[in-house]
């Protein structure tokens, strides 16, 4: 086949539309927001681009730093829990036969195709004071009390509107982001390597530790980054499941654009979030280059 990049007219025509689309919907709006981030509020609606860094400086105030710190910690905990939960799931999918594989993949993907808002409210229904979990616990408590055990009165567990609820919600939402790259990495692995390890006397845990994890490292790194980045920028989940003290960075940004009507500060926060994201992308790229050699054989 002729190399279509040789044909300048065709190449230009093929690439023009995506370039225009990318310019209008990504580059230009981002440039405007970036310009706002070095601007100042003038009156109620106008923003003057003054080239000030005051908005960025404001982001280093203790209150904002706390939100950012909380966000990073919550996203980090979420990512680690996702890894711990997703690894066995991905491993099971790898060793399932073709038919089971399809079903497991469907189960992982199903929440993906359901509206986030619906899923979050469903989670609230499960976790609230009179929700499924607490009702169930109350029932068990009642039964135990009937047997004459000194149980006291039932106190519903405070499952909602705290950091616990936020982490549960974030893990729930982001699990597929971890399962899929892990599954892709594990499925590519030559199964005879695992058999060879067993054959040489290693147990299953030793084989996971010494063979599977090192060889799946690029996939694990990809999963960590792909999970961490959207978890860090999550908006709906912490907003609905968290309490007033459990603000994450996206909610803070939303407040600047809406309630506080401080677009320049909101823009600066947005870009700080993006810089953090880019740092993690850079780490991923670095790990991939390092891990690339291991994967190739």
């Amino acid at each position, binding site marked *: 086949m002729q190399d279509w990049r040789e044909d300048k007219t065709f190449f230009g025509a093929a690439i023009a539309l995506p370039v225009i689309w990318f310019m209008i919907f990504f580059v230009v709006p981002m440039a405007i927001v970036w310009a706002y981030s070095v601007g100042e509020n003038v009156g109620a609606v106008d923003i003057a681009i003054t080239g000030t860094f005051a908005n960025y400086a404001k982001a280093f105030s203790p209150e904002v730093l706390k939100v950012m710190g909380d966000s990073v910690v919550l996203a980090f905990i979420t990512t680690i829990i996702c890894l711990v939960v997703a690894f066995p799931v991905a491993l099971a999918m790898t060793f399932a036969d073709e038919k089971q594989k399809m079903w497991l993949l469907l189960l992982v993907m199903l929440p993906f195709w359901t509206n986030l808002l619906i899923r979050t409210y469903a989670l609230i229904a499960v976790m609230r004071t009179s929700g499924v979990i607490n009702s169930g616990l109350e029932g068990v408590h009642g039964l135990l009390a009937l047997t004459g055990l000194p149980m006291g009165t039932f106190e519903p567990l405070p499952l909602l509107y705290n950091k616990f609820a936020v982490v549960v919600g974030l893990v729930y939402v982001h699990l597929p982001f971890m399962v899929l790259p892990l599954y892709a990495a594990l499925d590519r692995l*030559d199964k*005879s*390597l695992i*058999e*060879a*390890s*067993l*054959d*040489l*006397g*290693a*147990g299953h845990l*030793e084989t996971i530790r*010494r*063979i599977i994890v*090192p*060889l799946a490292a690029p996939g694990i790194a990809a999963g960590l980054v792909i999970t961490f980045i959207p978890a860090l920028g999550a908006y709906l989940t912490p907003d609905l499941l968290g309490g007033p003290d459990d603000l994450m960075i996206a909610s803070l940004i939303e407040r600047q654009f809406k309630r506080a009507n401080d677009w320049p500060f909101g823009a600066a926060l947005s870009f700080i979030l993006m810089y953090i994201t880019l740092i993690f992308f850079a780490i991923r790229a670095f790990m991939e280059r390092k891990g690339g*050699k*291991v994967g*190739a*054989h």
Partner: protein
Amino acid sequence: MSDRDTIIRVEEVTKRYGKVTAVDRVTLEIPRGEFFALLGPSGCGKTTLLRMLAGFEMPSEGKIFIDGVDMSTIPPNKRPVNMVFQSYAVFPHMTVFENVAYGLKFDNVAKADQYGRVMAALADVKLDHLAERKPDQMSGGQRQRVALARALVKKPKVLLLDEPLSALDAKLREAMRFELAELQDKIGITFVMVTHDQDEALAMACRCAVMDRGKLMQTATPSNLYEFPANKFVADFIGSVNLFEGTLEVDEPDHAIVQSEELGGRIFFDHGVSGAGGEKMWVGIRPEKIELLKREEGSTPPTPEDAPSGCNVTAGTIRQISYLGSESIYEIDLINGRRMQVSRPNLSRWDQEDFTWDDEVWLRWHGDSPVLLQS
């Protein structure tokens, strides 16, 4: 065979996957120190049997004993066997040394002794100079040596080899055949090799088990498989053979005669076959055991001296010639239309010129050449 000399005993082993029977009531014994080959076409169950020896598959029925111990409940990592995988399965994230040392970690070998044992195993496969290499810097043949050293360093009672030579190029394959056989001879460990390549099995193994569709067809030495096949499948799978259907006409202790419509004549055996007379059976004659003679118009059949007149001779016309250097293979159409294959060594540099296309020939063979096959 007493238990002491038997390292592997497979008793009535069957393996089913759903409705498919991969291995069907196989029973065999492998003596200690033997180079044993499992031979058969792809899908015959030989790899499944090997994987059951390694412990990666469990028999649906029957038992496997290794060195007298029932393996029914023993997982692969606790079995006294090690395997060389078809894809070699060399760990890509470890150096050659680390690959070979891997299995020793689980054997409670003192750190101080590990180095010596790894280097000795690498020396056995002539790789001691590449201990610090990573597998991606090595050729396929070298990776296979790593896999071999990695298995042998564990001093297994049995080494299992899954199609060990199939991924190598032709020249290297031939060299490795001798090397593997020599290595086995030197270290004395029982080798069990799976292969679909009959040349490989015949050249390397002390004994071969031929399998077809899950069933064991025959277990014998290479020469017995070739010269005394137990059935049509073995006769046809090992080497080339001309098979003719026929009925037993004479069955005496010292000779037998089979009448074959397919051949259009009678086949004389200079030995008894002790089969039931009249029953349908097959006669196999190897191409190199048939002699070609020029046939003149109106000449009489030159019956071989050890057969009664009219037996073990037939007439035909040469249709195809494959000149292979050391020998030539002639495809000959018999008068009744059946095709027969005859091979003839080119002993002198001019032998291939003796016969050419469309030559009229006699084909004849001695009374000890054909084999009678009941199934």
